[in-house]
């Protein structure tokens, strides 16, 4: 577990990527973003994160397909799947595909910060 946790945000909305990046950088984490599933997978292979935030609804390659491909590689990072819909089928599929957390948009920023700190805390304890 490195000193600064690495967080990767994969979402097709650049605004959301920027927001995540701003907040988590302020929290002291090393954040990178990817717009879309393909770019996300490339970044994961290049520099695996400690925590991955992955949007479900994305064009070309959605979050669930991305998760299927991630499942094939031996990962040691936490996957948080995000959805803008109260989509229970996606939630069940994400659970089956090995996601660690499922959160629903819109986020309250305080809730998001709490979740990130909690996940980082668990990573530190596990290390």
């Amino acid at each position, binding site marked *: 577990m490195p000193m600064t946790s690495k967080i990767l945000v994969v979402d097709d909305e650049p605004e959301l990527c920027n927001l995540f990046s701003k907040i988590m950088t302020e929290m002291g984490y090393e954040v990178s973003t990817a717009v879309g599933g393909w770019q996300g997978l490339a970044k994961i292979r290049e520099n695996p994160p400690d925590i991955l935030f992955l949007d479900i609804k994305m064009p070309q390659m959605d979050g669930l397909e991305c998760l299927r491909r991630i499942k094939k590689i031996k990962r040691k990072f936490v996957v948080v799947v995000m*959805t803008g819909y109260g*989509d*229970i089928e996606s*939630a069940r599929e994400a659970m089956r595909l090995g996601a*660690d*957390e499922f959160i629903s948009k819109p986020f*309250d920023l305080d*809730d998001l910060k709490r979740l990130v700190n909690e996940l980082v*805390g668990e990573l530190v304890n596990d290390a």
Partner: protein
Amino acid sequence: MRQLIYVPVIHSEADMGTVAEPHKKEFTDQFGVCVWNEHIKAVDEMWEGIRKRLCKLDIGRSKVRIYQDGLPLCGREMDIVRDVAAQGSQNHRLVLSLVGRGALLEGTEDVQLLLEEYRYIQAITSELEPTEKREKAKALSSKRKLLLRRRDRFIARRIDETLKEGETGILFAGMAHRIDKYLANDIQVSYLIFRLPFSKLRQKESL
């Protein structure tokens, strides 16, 4: 129009009544008290988020009925919810708070089916060795799945029979349930998800 707000949840041990204590012991023996506390914290946070989101919904003017997985149709529904809430269940505390604001609590499950599930859980937890527990759970897996679908169909029927035109139902159900699949076509379903800590669920299932 009949509306149903479906809240998929991950249950905590406090929701489980009599099977809670042995489960907690097994969990802490295997993963330690720290992991147990993290588990409780994540599930508590999920409930807090659900509570906040439910408070924001505009359901004040319609009659609201609460449906809760694991709650038998027996005439003592409120007593059961009070007891489990007193044992620390966030789920049941939220149900109590909604009832306090005027919602009606509905007996949701068939007693016989719940007893059947209870017997399966007992058969698994009564095994002493972890390997034997896993073997027993594996052996009972398909029977439990079938039972879960029978429970789902009963719950869907129960909602259909009690939820009236113009009313809103709130259904709290664990992730393994598929009640929405069996609901009457004229019931408009919306889903409320705040957070689902799957990794915590997996740790529990691995016992």
